[in-house]
């Protein structure tokens, strides 16, 4: 069969061309590996400088959060030093933060400006006093290195998270002590016979009204006693509900995040479909255009044109070998990230994922035919492929969500087929897309591939006639 002859010929050409072999087969695997590695879970913690101004007095300021109604009952000891060294106790924080204690504000700023830390947290003098009292909030100053916006945002999120967790811990403790105080006011411990509490007072008064001599009490006194009993009953009712009131005032909102479809995802999970899309488009586009242009560079089109081989057979042979390379490469990457114990990539809907890979390959080959139609030589087509692929990297949602981009950029993203590949693959791999959910990306990829193939073939014919 003529197509087999042409495929074998193209295979030999690729295997014997170091440039093609590197750019088509080796490079995508390397680049996908690098991207994958870069976006796997961070193993370095965010360096943060911490200044405890309490230490300016020479020793840590230690105080106790006490029961506001019974300060004599002791409470929870707290110091800034304890907070700083205790932050490691916040679950998971150790994985992300690495604290550098400094002695002065200048030292902290120096570390920040020299890039050795990404944030500087200042615990002001009297921080502990503010925590333990029930009159005001304690303030922490946080200075973030803004020289890298993305990193600054991530650091800010991390620091806010730490402060939030710290806050929640102290809210827990303070609310506990307040509730304990209320409980004590309502029902004091048995040992406290002199102070019976609201409930005890009410019960004592009620017992009094049951006694025989109470009948002799003048009526207006009886009315007063009844009023006091009613008042105490009301106080009881309010205090009984107080835990809910305090809880809702102290923590009016609590967020609980849950994973949907595939459960909890990591950055690496989002990167796998992106890396697959990138590899498909890089290899598909470059392989097709290079093989087409190589044919032209070898002046072989004219010779092929007078053999009984039809033009469609020549184009089909390129499509076949390119598809084989792209499939081999994509399935290899997919297999590695699925089976690798650290990655264990999600593939919720494998048949749909495969279908999207096929359609993306078709679109990438279409783009390759188009580029092959306008390039004169293999080096030129590689350059052109880079020029086309480069903006796709930034606009197609590989690393930054398209929905977060300005309207104009979103419109631009819709022109790039890689956007649909990434959307489709993320849907089929991570969000459990069904066939009907992926109709838009599938249709867009098919249309793009078809359009580019037609235009590219026409351009190619024109180019050969020149």
């Amino acid at each position, binding site marked *: 069969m003529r197509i087999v*002859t042409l495929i074998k010929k193209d295979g*030999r050409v690729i295997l*014997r061309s170091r440039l093609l072999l590197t750019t088509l087969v080796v490079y995508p695997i390397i680049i996908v590996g690098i991207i994958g590695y870069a976006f796997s879970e961070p193993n370095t913690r965010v360096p943060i400088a911490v200044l405890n101004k309490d230490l300016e007095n020479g020793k840590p300021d230690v105080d106790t959060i006490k029961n506001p109604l019974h300060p004599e009952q002791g409470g929870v000891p707290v110091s800034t030093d304890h907070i700083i060294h205790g932050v490691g106790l916040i679950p998971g924080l150790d994985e992300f933060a690495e604290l550098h204690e400094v002695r002065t504000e200048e030292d902290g700023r120096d570390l920040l400006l020299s890039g050795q830390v990404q944030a500087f947290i200042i615990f002001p003098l009297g921080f502990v006093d503010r925590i333990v009292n029930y009159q005001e909030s304690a303030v922490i100053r946080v200075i973030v290195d803004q020289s890298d916006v993305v990193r600054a945002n991530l650091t800010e999120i991390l620091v806010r998270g730490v402060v939030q967790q710290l806050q929640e811990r102290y809210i827990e403790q303070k609310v506990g002590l307040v509730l304990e105080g209320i409980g004590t006011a309502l029902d004091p411990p048995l040992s406290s016979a002199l102070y019976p509490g609201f409930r005890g007072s009410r019960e004592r008064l009620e017992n009094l009204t049951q006694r025989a001599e109470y009948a002799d009490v003048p009526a207006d006194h009886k009315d007063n006693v009844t009023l006091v009993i009613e008042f105490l009953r009301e106080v009881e009712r309010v205090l009984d509900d107080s835990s809910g009131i305090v809880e809702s005032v102290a923590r009016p909102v609590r967020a609980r995040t849950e994973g949907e479809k595939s459960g909890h995802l990591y950055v690496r999970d989002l990167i796998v479909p992106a890396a697959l899309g990138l590899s498909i488009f890089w290899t598909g586009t470059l392989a097709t255009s290079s093989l087409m242009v190589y044919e032209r560079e070898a*002046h*072989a089109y004219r*010779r*092929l*044109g*007078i053999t009984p081989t039809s033009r469609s057979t020549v184009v089909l042979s390129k499509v076949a070998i390119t598809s084989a390379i792209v499939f081999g490469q994509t399935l290899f990457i997919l297999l590695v990230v699925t089976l690798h114990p650290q990655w264990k990539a999600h593939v919720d809907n494998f048949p749909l994922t495969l279908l999207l890979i096929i359609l993306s390959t078709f679109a990438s080959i279409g783009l390759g035919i188009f580029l092959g139609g306008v390039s004169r030589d293999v080096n030129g087509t590689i350059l052109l492929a880079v020029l086309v692929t480069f903006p796709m990297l930034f606009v197609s949602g590989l690393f930054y969500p398209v929905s977060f981009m300005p309207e104009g950029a979103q419109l631009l993203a819709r022109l790039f087929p890689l956007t649909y590949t990434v959307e489709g693959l993320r849907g089929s791999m991570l969000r459990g897309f069904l066939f009907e959910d992926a109709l838009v990306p599938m249709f867009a990829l098919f249309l793009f591939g078809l359009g580019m193939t037609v235009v590219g073939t026409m351009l190619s014919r024109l180019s050969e006639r020149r």
Partner: protein
Amino acid sequence: MAERPPTDGIAIRTTNLTKRYGNTLACDNVNLEIRRGELFGLLGPNGAGKTTLFNILSTQVKPSAGQALVGGFNVTRDAKKVKQIIGIVPQDVAAYEKLTAWENLIVFAELYNVHGRTAYQRANELLRMVSLQGRGHELVKNYSGGMKHRLNIILGLIHDPQILYFDEPTTGLDPIARTELWEIIRVLKRAGKTIVLTTHYMQEAEALCDRVAILNQGKVAALGSPKKMGKSLEEIFFTTTSGDSVAPARQVRA
């Protein structure tokens, strides 16, 4: 090999062959008869219509009017049959540099449906014919310019065509390589091949061709045997192609 219809000893016949690109007439009522076994030269200045005529005769371009028969087959209707009986030697070397000469020959043999032992035998014969038998398994990219041109010729012969088109085959070659190539062309003529040759070199046409046609502005301006034209081919060429108007076709007695 396609079965050839009776051709009355004529390998190629064009009748009022015309090709129009927009308002430009690339071929204007060209009438030619090239005999079997003849070595026929097509001469003319740039833009005279040589390439268009070449492309029509090799089925690459369809004529706007008139007809062309190659080996008795119509180039438009029977393009596939025409392709089986013609071979082309393009001006630029049309070979895959990442393949060996042998692999190039086998690829094109298989595209012409010549397979297995027949293809290998044919490849060996052709490599021997152009003295490349010892270098057949080397990559073409390592060949010298002359070797590449010799390979370029035999790639057009792998399916043993009856009619061969040579498109300015010696352009850019040094005198030794040119002489070698002339010798190969003569060998092919002796083997009975019909050869159509385009060239810019009058000396080449005079040395090789049985007959020549000089084209100008898409028309045949002169036609005949260079040896029997009376004047030098160069003189006729300049007479027929100078000026804006085309000199009437000068039929020289063959």
